[in-house]
């Protein structure tokens, strides 16, 4: 899910496709959903752009690090890289770990 007010979408999509390839899911479809209004953000529990769902499970929640009580909003989402830096996109290793966790759930 993405919002046009945040410029991170292209990078996030590229890193997600790289992560999919890395875990052997390079052929999987990535569905993009634009969030345009506060109402849509609330309904989708969208806490910022990008928000990535893998088989319906939010990426960071899948890793036990969900958005918690973060309010839904048209916003850029704050991620933490594994070295502690703030980033507008998830750590690529987090993407791979969440994808592998999804694969394990399916098996």
């Amino acid at each position, binding site marked *: 899910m993405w919002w046009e*007010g*945040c*410029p*991170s979408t292209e990078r996030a999509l590229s890193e997600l496709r790289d992560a999919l390839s890395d875990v052997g899911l390079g052929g999987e479809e990535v569905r993009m959903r634009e969030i345009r209004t*506060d109402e849509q953000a609330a309904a989708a529990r969208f806490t910022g752009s990008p928000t990535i769902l893998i088989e319906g499970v939010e990426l960071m929640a899948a890793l036990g690090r969900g958005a918690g009580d973060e*309010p839904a*909003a048209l*916003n*850029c*989402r*704050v*991620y933490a890289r594994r070295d502690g*830096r*703030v*980033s*507008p996109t998830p750590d690529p290793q987090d993407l791979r770990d969440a994808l592998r966790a999804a694969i394990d759930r399916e098996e």
Partner: protein
Amino acid sequence: MSVDIGDPAPDFVLPDTAGEGWSLRDDGTAVTVVVFTCNHCPYALAWHDRIVDAARDYADSDVRFLAINANDAERYPRDSYEAMQARVAREGWPMPYLHDATQEVARAYGAKTTPDVFVIDAAGALRYRGAPDSDYDDPTQRAAWLRDAVDAVLAGRTPERSQTPPVGCSIKWRR
């Protein structure tokens, strides 16, 4: 509205987190760096330490840094005046953090994102506008574009790079 390179930067009086008013043109400083920023944007947060380091590095020069938060705090409570006060108290900033509650200053400057950097000379003319450096994700950049502009103005030169596209979260305008 917006300001072109060489144009007079709009003056303002805005309160910092202690309630003290700050004006663009009240002390004849050689260089003033105005940074539109906020509390919740990952781009602003990623660049923040580099801007803080620059403010500290130029503290003994005739340069001052003014950070301004213009985001709509009603829709984005993490950008409220109280949240700004808490952040400054927690982190100890080397520059005042000003609240543009009406968003008039951000509109007058044509600020688009957080961060959006404006470097202004002693005469009040805009000399650089844009991003702090080329990559929010690379701390080794050290706000190089901002520093280059400040150094040029201090040396009486025209900055080699006077304008770059601002990169970050859109300013959250009131509806």
